[in-house]
């Protein structure tokens, strides 16, 4: 449950105690970003340029996408200066 802690004035039509809406955007993905941990230099470009902001720090040494919400746009792979992220077809991971 999320609560509106930032701003006290809410409209009469909205209920800030309701949970936020959340689509299963991970379902849209056709290609999955796979991070090569050895190549990653921890510059953070993938995290700042990700439109969905799903790249999370893993133990402050590498970034890893939250695959529940990653839409698979591929901006992280394109912007990575070391080409540490590769886009793999989603079908390879399905059982």
């Amino acid at each position, binding site marked *: 449950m999320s609560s509106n802690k930032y701003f006290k004035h809410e409209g009469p039509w909205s209920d800030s105690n309701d949970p936020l809406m*959340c689509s299963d955007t991970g379902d849209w993905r056709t290609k999955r970003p796979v991070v090569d941990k050895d190549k990653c230099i921890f510059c953070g470009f993938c995290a700042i340029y990700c439109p969905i*902001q799903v790249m999370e720090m893993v133990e402050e040494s590498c970034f890893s996408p939250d695959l529940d919400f990653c839409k698979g746009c591929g901006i992280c792979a394109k912007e990575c200066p070391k080409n540490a992220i590769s886009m793999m077809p989603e079908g390879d991971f399905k059982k």
Partner: protein
Amino acid sequence: MTQKKKDNLTKVMDYLKYEDPFSKGVAFCPGCGLELLLRFIPQVMGNDIVITGTPSCSAPVLLGQNNQSWHKLSYFGTLMTGAAANATGLARYYRKAGIKNTVVCFNGDGTAADIGFGNLSGAAERNEPFIYICYDNEGYMNTGIQKSGTTPFGATTTTTPFGSASKGKNLRRMNLALKMAMHKIPYAATATLSDLDDLAKKLLKAKEAKKRGFAFLHVFAPCTTGWGFAPENTIEICRRAVKTNYFPLWEAENGKIRMTKTVKKPKPVSTYTELIKKFAHLSEEDLQILQDDVDYEYCMLGGLSLLEGECRLPASLED
């Protein structure tokens, strides 16, 4: 090892001081520039902002659906003809009620440049204390990719298609940010998504300038669906737009124009248009017209920024 890696971390991270108020799975297209901008603004400026906006791609997410919402911010949905007028009312109410927050009027280029330009100009002229952010995707993308005032020369849209009778838009684009800078408002700037540190600085400057009056930000945000490019190219297109001077980055305080990023050897505009399907049909002559337009606008900006230094300003405007 870990410490060494940490030194590499980009400086933009330092600007992201606040929590992202949006839910993770938000209904924007993959690779949407608008989504990155929307998530970036509250993370930099703080969550005590009230967004007002109009029917656009941003509205379904910002307004929420049924009685649920996608984010934790406050939002006030208005009509396109009265976006800035509504923001004026909100800003005045908060000032009279003594509530300290920031009103952000967040609109597309259709509202800012075409339909709602009258009251945008009026609010700027009255120097109302709020921030107006225009995200420029060069057309009415939400309603089906119609052309707007900021659509560049030659671009195909559904109202200016490429065919026997029409060869894309036949007029050059207007320069909205320059028009707003000519209102001599406390702060006007252009920004894009490839230079996020520049965008963050300008957002913070706009928040500071809001105490003195109107602040205007024009943000270049490509649209994958409407322009026809691969979703991974969003940031690359922003970068090339800056490197070809197609979208120069500058800011103007009280009408004093200053370039925030100068490109030493600008590339030809074809390096920008080659990535985008809406420019795919352009012939050499059309490209030359587009290139001349880009050069003309850049020369005008350069001239204005030089003139400011050479002419004598009234003492009240000098820092």
